[in-house]
């Protein structure tokens, strides 16, 4: 019997993918590995409680995979938002991923799928307008958030090389935006005054969660090897997105902005460390051609539609945007 083990089912995207897999394959085919149990409405799903930051988590994972007859592992236990407890985040994302991959290899798993982020390419001025999968991953290493993801990807690449019989897929998703998404960057869109970097306005990609779920579905069906960008149909300039959401933007000189963001973060305020501002300064738009070719995945939503869906979700009655809407 081929069963799928999903880690990080308590995360937003993990829960969405879990729900979809239960719909498609039935609860019996799924093993949820997380510290928190999956919703009780998902019938038949086996829950194995496991903390990936425990020292012997890899041995427990091997047991789980063997006992449950797992042949596919979907690893989604990664943080979308920066964590104040950097050590814990590192243990979970880098070391935890290593445990998952090692256990998958030891248990003879056939397909390993890692959820990653297009942000791992790093936002740089020298980036081409469209990053392809063979582009070197060069995130800002001062950013623990990105460094941990980079390490998880490097572990995945090493295991793919060492265990050629195991198909390893990495899906790099663009920042999620849409109904139900609550992250450090969507929090900016819930404010009325949004600081922006003076003189910078990069294109950004906002991925609707429905599209992301479809991409995981396809990847589980096709079991391709290698990395794939999962991106929306179109990108949108950051300032256009903010103005479409009816925000008042406050341009800040970037040296000041970096220092301020770092200061606020150190004080326990703010959404994230200053190094995240790179993503509001430079391009990290990824190219979705490879996913289209090899996974048959093409996003149904563009960034604009994802933004609209998010705004409808946040302001179902019109709310903050209502006067702007009245003009149309």
């Amino acid at each position, binding site marked *: 019997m081929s069963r799928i083990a999903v880690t990080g089912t308590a995360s937003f995207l993990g829960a969405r993918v879990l729900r979809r897999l239960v719909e498609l394959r039935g609860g019996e085919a799924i093993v949820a590995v997380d510290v928190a149990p999956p919703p009780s409405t998902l019938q038949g799903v086996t829950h194995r409680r496991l903390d990936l930051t425990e020292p012997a988590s890899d041995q427990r994972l091997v047991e789980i995979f063997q006992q449950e007859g797992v042949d596919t592992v979907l690893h989604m236990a990664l943080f979308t938002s920066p964590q104040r407890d950097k050590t814990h985040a590192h243990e979970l994302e880098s070391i935890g991923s290593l445990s998952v991959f090692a256990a998958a290899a030891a248990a003879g798993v056939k397909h390993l799928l890692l959820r990653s982020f297009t942000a791992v390419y790093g936002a740089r001025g020298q980036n081409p*307008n469209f990053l392809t999968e063979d582009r070197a991953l060069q995130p800002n290493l001062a950013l623990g958030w990105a460094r941990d993801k980079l390490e998880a990807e490097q572990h995945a690449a090493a295991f793919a090389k060492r265990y050629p019989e195991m198909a390893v897929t990495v899906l790099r998703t663009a920042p999620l935006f849409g109904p139900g998404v609550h992250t450090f960057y969507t929090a900016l869109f819930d404010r009325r005054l949004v600081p922006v970097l003076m003189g910078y306005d990069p*294109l950004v990609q906002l991925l609707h969660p429905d599209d992301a779920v479809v991409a995981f579905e396809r990847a589980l069906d096709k079991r391709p090897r290698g990395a794939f960008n999962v991106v929306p149909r*179109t990108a949108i*300039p950051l*300032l256009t997105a903010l103005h479409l959401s009816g925000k008042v933007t406050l341009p800040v000189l970037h040296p000041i902005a970096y220092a301020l963001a770092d200061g606020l973060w150190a004080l326990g305020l703010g959404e994230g460390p200053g190094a995240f501002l790179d993503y509001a300064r430079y391009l990290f738009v990824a190219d979705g051609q490879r996913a289209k070719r090899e996974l048959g995945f093409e996003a149904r939503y563009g960034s*604009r539609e994802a933004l609209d869906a998010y705004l409808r979700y946040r302001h179902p*009655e019109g709310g903050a945007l209502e*006067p*702007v809407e009245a003009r*149309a």
Partner: protein
Amino acid sequence: MSSAKVVPIGGPRRRARPSGGSRRRVRDVPESVGAQSRETVGAAEGPLVALARLIQGGAAGLDWEAVARLWSAAYFSWHSEETDEFGFDRKFAERIRPIFEFLYTVWWRVEAAGVENVPASGPGLLVANHSGVLPYDGLMIKIAVRHEHPARRECRMLALDMFALLPFLAPLLSRMGEVRASQENGERLLSNGELVGVFPEGVKGIGKRYKERYKLARFGRGGFVRLALRTGAPIVPCAVVGSEEIHPVLAKADWLGKPFGLPYFPITPTFPLLGPLGLVPAPSKWSIDFAEPIPLDRYGPDAAEDPILVNRLSEEVRGTIQRMIDGRLARRRSIWFG
């Protein structure tokens, strides 16, 4: 409009958050609300109307919504809501074009010849000499193609890193349709069938000293030829005369440019002597010549890996442009009147 359901603007919101009386006065102006209009949050209302609304509301009208409305109306009066995949914003380009049209027709009185050599459809690579400290020559080539070619094509210039990475200028260029110069970007544009303009001399060309004017610098490492070979796009050599005189560089103080991230710091008769006024370009007489396209599709995309061929073609294009420039210069009687 009259048959549409009429709802006070503040309608649904007032339920959620009761507001003061004076604020309601502004909101009670009936306005038709398009159903499901969230998708078209655009600026149907200009910034002046939004400003008038703000003033009409008085101090009480000065709430976040009113400010946000004014803010976004001002933004969308200059920007469209959609851009292409490289960030090209047609509305913004349309708005800003009159400035460059003035420079083209009045200031530099550009004379364009051979525009018909630019392919009317499909990919094409315009290759031109670069000069004049600031990239006005690229903008003038754009206007020449757009105004004098029957197909009115939009030429996408590949911009040097020094411009494409500069704050303020970077978003401005990408909104105007310019793209940071790189093989990946150029290849993508050409395979989309776009007309692309490049300046293979790069920084070496644009920052030339006045005494080196109209002597073409080395054409990079032939990247533009590889681009054309890979995509099968024909190369159209293009010679710009007049642009060397707009900011005659007498000397260069590169150490001054370093802290600003600039590869050079020009000293001209007016800059930095006159401060910002020194940035006004001299009104020389310009000409832009387009030569017959050089088809490269017979070599095939693999030829891009042949460095000898690439260099030969690169030198051929450079020679053509140099000849066109020399021809123009020989016929030119005056820098100012042509």
